[in-house]
């Protein structure tokens, strides 16, 4: 029932779609992570004018669909005259730039909340101890709060990363030829449903579980201290030598 020749012929297209999906994911996640650390620090701040705007930003972004956000940037901004007449228009007329911007804005909002939650979960004693040693608040964040909060955020962040990978499929609606767009094109050209969507499902599936695997490795490295220590045998073995 499956026409393998269709799958074989379109494999190169699927791989170039994979490249687009991965590139979109990488630049969006990198931007998101970079922006969300300072925003999370602002979000937990006790200064009203620092915390509230960030709250509003994450609330609005998390309360609206990504598709709408992308359409506002890609189609909507073309309506605004001063954008169309400024130098930025060279960027905003590119689907690539709009997708990157929309995805980065979106994932930054979610990641900010994740890191802010992890910051709030810091045991009070750690902050007190750091202050009692005379640490400045910059050093407090750099040495105590952020290293452990970013570690604590890792499991939730892996969910966000997988979610973002799935969200890149939405880029197919603004002319970008990612995995999903390739599947739609293959379907349209060959009218081969199982071949087109089955293949793309396999691609996404492998991608999802690779991503989950990478985060497991990261957790094994950075959350080593949280794993249950079931046996003390290695330590004894070292002494015995």
């Amino acid at each position, binding site marked *: 029932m499956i026409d393998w020749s269709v799958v074989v012929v379109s494999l190169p297209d699927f791989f170039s779609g994979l490249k687009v999906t991965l590139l979109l994911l990488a630049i969006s996640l990198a931007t998101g992570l970079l922006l969300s650390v300072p925003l999370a620090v602002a979000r937990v701040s006790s200064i009203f004018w620092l915390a509230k705007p960030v709250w509003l930003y994450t609330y609005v972004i998390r*309360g609206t*669909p990504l598709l709408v956000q992308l*359409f506002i940037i890609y189609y909507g901004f073309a*309506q605004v005259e001063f954008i169309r007449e400024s130098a930025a228009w060279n960027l905003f007329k590119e689907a690539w730039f709009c997708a990157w911007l929309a995805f980065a804005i979106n994932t930054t909002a979610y990641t900010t909340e994740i890191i802010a939650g992890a910051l709030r979960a810091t045991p009070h004693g750690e902050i007190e101890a750091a202050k009692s040693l005379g640490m400045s608040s910059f050093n407090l964040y750099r040495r105590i709060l952020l290293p452990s909060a970013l570690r604590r955020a890792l499991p939730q962040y892996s969910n966000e990363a997988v979610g973002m990978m799935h*969200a*890149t499929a939405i880029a197919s609606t603004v002319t970008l030829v990612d995995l*999903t767009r390739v599947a739609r094109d293959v379907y349209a050209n060959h009218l081969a449903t199982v071949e087109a969507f089955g293949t793309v499902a396999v691609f996404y599936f492998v991608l999802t579980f690779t991503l989950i695997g990478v985060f497991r490795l990261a957790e094994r490295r950075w959350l080593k201290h949280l794993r249950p220590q079931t046996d003390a045998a290695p330590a004894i073995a070292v002494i015995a030598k």
Partner: protein
Amino acid sequence: MLHGYLPAIVEGLLTSLQVAVLSLAIACIFGLVGAAAKLSNSRAARVVVDVYTTLIRGIPELALMLMVFYGGQALLNYLVTKAGGDYIEVPAFTAGVLTIGFVFGAYMTETFRGAILAIPKGQMEAALSVGMSRIQVLQRITLPQMVRHAIPGFTNNWLIMIKATALVSIIGLDDMMQRAGLAAAATRQPLDFYLAVAAIYLAITTVSILLLSRVEKRFSLGVRKAEFK
């Protein structure tokens, strides 16, 4: 307001809400059946549901939606024509609702499974030991308590789902997003319409959060919260 397209957008909103509510109902049914199967003694049932939840959570909603919309249509017609029937066109509305319901059923399965596991086992054993039937245990002991544990996950799933309904426009459903696109093309004012749609979605999610937190409070009466002092 909105260059005279407000009524059209509101009509689209009604379609979006219908899609959301109907898919929620389907997702809950899939979720309850799935959770029951995952916790059952039947190995076959557990494997089937494990495959279902793993597969669904590994593939983007949009790709799944296209797959079910086009693939489901092809499969249905393959079966129908084999049985000697005529070609059937699956309406986009049905395909959209079924797909979203099916996809979020997988997420609901995990939510409900966790909620059932959060109820102390002794309670079910006690109920069985006083002679209640399994159905009675479900109806009197498990379900009422499950609701409380399921609400946070349920709220989360619902919020993701209501936002996912924006995707049904891609398979040609005449929802709010589609209407906004048509109005944007006709008036050349896309920003106005997409901002309006964003505002409507934000209103829906805000109302949902407020309502569901009240429901949670209602079901958590008599449960003492942990106090941090």
